[in-house]
C-alpha cells in the first residue's frame, strides 16, 4: 500500500460543548477514491473545512504528502494541491462560465500576475477542455447566474479540476443532478488519473459505491468504521447508526439502490 497522501490524526473541532468533529483519524492513500458517508450532522462538511483550512482545527494534525499543513492558511494549502467543490455552489455569479474556469486555471499558468491583457491561450484551452469534460462546452459564454442548478454543480467540478489538484474534495457533487448528469459525473470522476486522489462526501449511495475504493462512516463527529465498500455494507454498527435515523432498512436494501437520500 502506498504512503498516504492525506493523513488526519486525531483531529477535532469543537464549537463550545458541541464536538462537531471528534478525534478523527483517517489515512487516504495516493490514488484512492475515498468516500465519507454518515447521517446529517455527522461532521462530514466540517471535516472537509478542517482539511482545506477554511476552519482551524481545535486539535490534531493534518498531513498532506508527508508534510504537516495544520498551520497553513487556506490559500497555501490550495497551492499544495487541495481543491474542492462545496456543498452549496460557490461560483462567481456575475461572470461567465468560461471566466469561472479561467480564474482557477490561470493560477497554474503564471499569467495571473500579468497586469496587462494576455491571450492566455494555454489556460483558455484547458478551460475549454474541462468544460467539454463536464458537459458544458456550449455554455462557455453564459453568465453563471443563468445556469440551472445541475449545470452549476457541473461547473463546480470543472473549476475544482482546473486547479490541477493532487487531492480533490467533493462535497455532495451530485446533489440536485438529474440521473443522467450524475451518471456522467461518475464517468468523469472514474476517468481521473491515479495522480488525483479523491475524497467524496455524497448522499447518493449509488454514486458512492460506483466510485469508492474505501469508505469511512462518520457518526456524531466520530469515525464509526473505515473499510472497503463491502465491509461497510455488512457492518452491524453502520446499520445501527442509520437505523437511528429510521432509514437503515433503505440504506441496506441493495436490491434497489437507486437514489437514496439518507437525510
Amino acid at each position, binding site marked *: 500500500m502506498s504512503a498516504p497522501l492525506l493523513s488526519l490524526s486525531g483531529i477535532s473541532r469543537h464549537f463550545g460543548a458541541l464536538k462537531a468533529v471528534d478525534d478523527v483519524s483517517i489515512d487516504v492513500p495516493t490514488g484512492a477514491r475515498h468516500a465519507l458517508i454518515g447521517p446529517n450532522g455527522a461532521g462530514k462538511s466540517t471535516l472537509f473545512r478542517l482539511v*482545506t483550512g*477554511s476552519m482551524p482545527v481545535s486539535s490534531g494534525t493534518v498531513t498532506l504528502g508527508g508534510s504537516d499543513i495544520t498551520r497553513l*492558511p*487556506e*490559500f*497555501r494549502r*490550495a*497551492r499544495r494541491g487541495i*481543491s*474542492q467543490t*462545496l456543498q452549496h455552489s*460557490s*461560483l*462567481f*455569479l*456575475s*461572470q*461567465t462560465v468560461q*471566466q469561472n474556469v*479561467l*480564474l*482557477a486555471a*490561470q*493560477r497554474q499558468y503564471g*499569467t*495571473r*500576475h*500579468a*497586469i*496587462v*491583457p*494576455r*491571450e*492566455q491561450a494555454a489556460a483558455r484551452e484547458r478551460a475549454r477542455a474541462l468544460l467539454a469534460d463536464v458537459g458544458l462546452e*456550449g*455554455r*462557455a*459564454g*453564459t*453568465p453563471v*447566474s*443563468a*445556469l*440551472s*442548478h445541475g449545470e452549476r454543480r457541473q461547473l463546480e467540478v470543472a*473549476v475544482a479540476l482546473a*486547479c490541477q489538484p493532487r487531492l480533490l474534495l467533493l462535497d455532495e457533487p451530485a446533489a440536485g443532478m438529474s440521473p443522467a448528469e450524475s451518471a456522467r459525473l461518475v464517468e468523469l470522476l472514474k476517468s481521473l488519473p491515479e495522480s488525483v486522489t479523491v475524497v467524496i462526501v455524497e448522499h447518493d449511495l449509488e454514486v458512492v459505491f460506483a466510485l469508492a475504493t474505501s469508505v469511512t462512516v462518520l457518526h456524531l463527529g466520530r469515525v464509526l468504521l473505515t473499510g472497503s465498500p463491502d465491509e461497510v455494507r455488512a457492518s452491524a454498527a453502520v446499520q445501527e447508526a442509520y437505523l437511528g435515523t429510521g432509514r437503515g432498512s433503505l440504506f441496506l436494501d441493495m436490491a434497489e439502490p437507486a437514489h437514496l437520500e439518507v437525510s
Partner: protein
Amino acid sequence: MSLPVGTPATPAAIASTTPPRTAERRTGRLLRVALPLVVLVVLAAVPLFVAPFGTSTLSRILIFALFAVSLDLLVGVTGLPSLGHAAYFGVGAYAAGLVAIHWTAEGVVPVLVAAAAGAVAAGATGWLAVRSGGVYFLMLTLAIGELVHQLAQSLASVTGGSNGLYGIPTVRIGGTPLTLPGYVYWFVLAVTGLGYLGLHLVASSPFGGVLRGIRDNEPRMRSLGYSPFRYKFAAFVIAGGFAGLAGGLFAAQVRLVTPSEAGFTTSALVLLAVILGGAGSLWGPILGAAVVVLVRDALGPDLDGHGPLLLGIVFVLAVYVLPRGFAGLRDLLRRRPSPGETP
C-alpha cells in the same frame, strides 16, 4: 487580442448556446477601438472651438474623471468602497505642487512624482485598510482621509496650511511654459488618456480577473489558492497611484492646492461620481465625474450656492431611475435580459 475580462456577453451568446457570429464580434471590436478614438479626436479639438473657461472646466472634468476611474478600480472591480480616496489625490497634488515650486515644473516630472507619492501613501495605509472589509473598510479609509486632511492643515511650513499651497508655476514642456489654457488642456488630455488606458489594461488583465473574483466570492478565491489580501493590496496601491496622478494634474492645472482636496467632501464627491456613472464599468464614472464637476463648478455659481443641493437631487434621481448608473443605460438600450437568478 483577447476580449476584456469584464466585457458583458452579447445578447446572442445568452440567447443561444453558440458563440456570437464573427461578423457581430468584428463590429463589436471595431466599435471598441473606434469609439475611444473618435471621443479622443473630439476632445482634442475642443480648445479650437470653445472659450477658455469651457476648456478649463473640461480640464477639471478630465482630471476628476481619471480620479473617479481610479476609485472605480477599488469600488467596482475589487468591491472595496473607499471613503478616503481623496487622501491619495491630495498627496499627489501636494507632491506635484512642491516639486514644481522647489525643483522643476518640466512636463511630466511633477505628475509622475505625484503618481509615485500617491502609490507610496496608498501602500503605507492600505496595508492596514485592506485587512478589513465592509463597514470597517469604510471607517478605516474615512479615518485615513481625515488624517491626511489634518496633516495638510497642520504642516503649514510645507503645505501652506489652510491657505493652501499657492504660487505653483505653470507646466513647462521643453522649457516653454504652457500659458494658454488650451495647451494645458492638451497636456491634461494626454496624461489622463494614458492614465485611463493604463487602468483599462489593468482591469482587463488576468490580474483584473482575479480582482473581480475577489469581489464576487472571496472565500472561493482563497480555496482556489489566491491570497485575497495581496491582490486587494496591489489594487489599492495601483488605485492610489492613479489617484495621485490625477492629483498631480490638478496641481498643474489649478495651480493651487488646499487641504480640502484631501478631505472628506472630495472623497464623497468622487464616490458619488463612481456610483452615478456605474461602478465596475470604468467608462461610466467618466460620465459621472462630468456631471459632478458640471453641477458643482459650472452650474453651482448660478444657483446661489445651491450646487450641492442640485447634486443631491441628481444623485437621488439617478439611484432611483438608474440603479446601475449610466453604465446601466447601455444594457437598457440593448434590452438585455437582466442577469437575475434563475431557479
